[in-house]
């Protein structure tokens, strides 16, 4: 399972994606993924907001994740 990182999320982790190998326990839901991210990188907890996109759509914490989903961390957007 790969998780794409953009903007400040990329800076916090220090790379443009996180990879969960088969050996790891994969995060089961969006909420689970967020909790793990904040545990590993406390800086995520200090952002104005932290959203997750699953297959290019904003996803609530309850959405289940499977290893073929395209998953992305969406820190506060600032386009325009």
């Amino acid at each position, binding site marked *: 399972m790969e998780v*794409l990182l*953009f*903007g*400040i999320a990329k*800076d916090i982790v220090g790379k443009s994606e996180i990879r969960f190998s088969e050996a790891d326990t994969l995060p089961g839901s969006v909420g689970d993924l967020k909790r793990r991210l904040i545990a590993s990188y406390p800086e995520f907890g*200090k*952002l*104005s907001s932290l959203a997750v*996109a699953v297959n*290019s*759509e*904003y996803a609530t914490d309850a959405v289940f994740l499977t290893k073929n989903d395209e998953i*992305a961390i*969406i*820190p*506060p*957007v*600032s*386009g*325009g």
Partner: protein
Amino acid sequence: MEKPIIEIVETIDTARVYDELSDAKSGGICVFVGTVRDFTNNESVISLEFEAYKSMALKEMEKIVDQAAEKWSMNKVVIRHAVGLKKVQEPVVVIGVSTAHRDACFAACRYMIDTLKETVPIWKKEMFEDKSVWVSAHP
């Protein structure tokens, strides 16, 4: 409505947007251009860098046009956002719409830029003399 022009590009050519919006059924065209300002909070900005989650950003931009089309009768629409490094005074986003009457083009243009800033996964980093900041990242 004709098929909208929704793009993420390296460089925005503001001169062509009118030709793209010009329309025999429209009496009004409203265009908003967002540009790089030289100061933020009294600090001198050197440049901006824009990063996009492109596939999702295009989808979200399409949703914005669809939502606006439910509210207003639009004839032609352009939403074009730039990515990469932008210097002071360069355009970073263009939103334009042509409608039969001017009320609708102002309202739809305003709605689309406001919503773009809230929902579209694009990130802006401001480069100052001595630091760089991801805009809006922290409270």
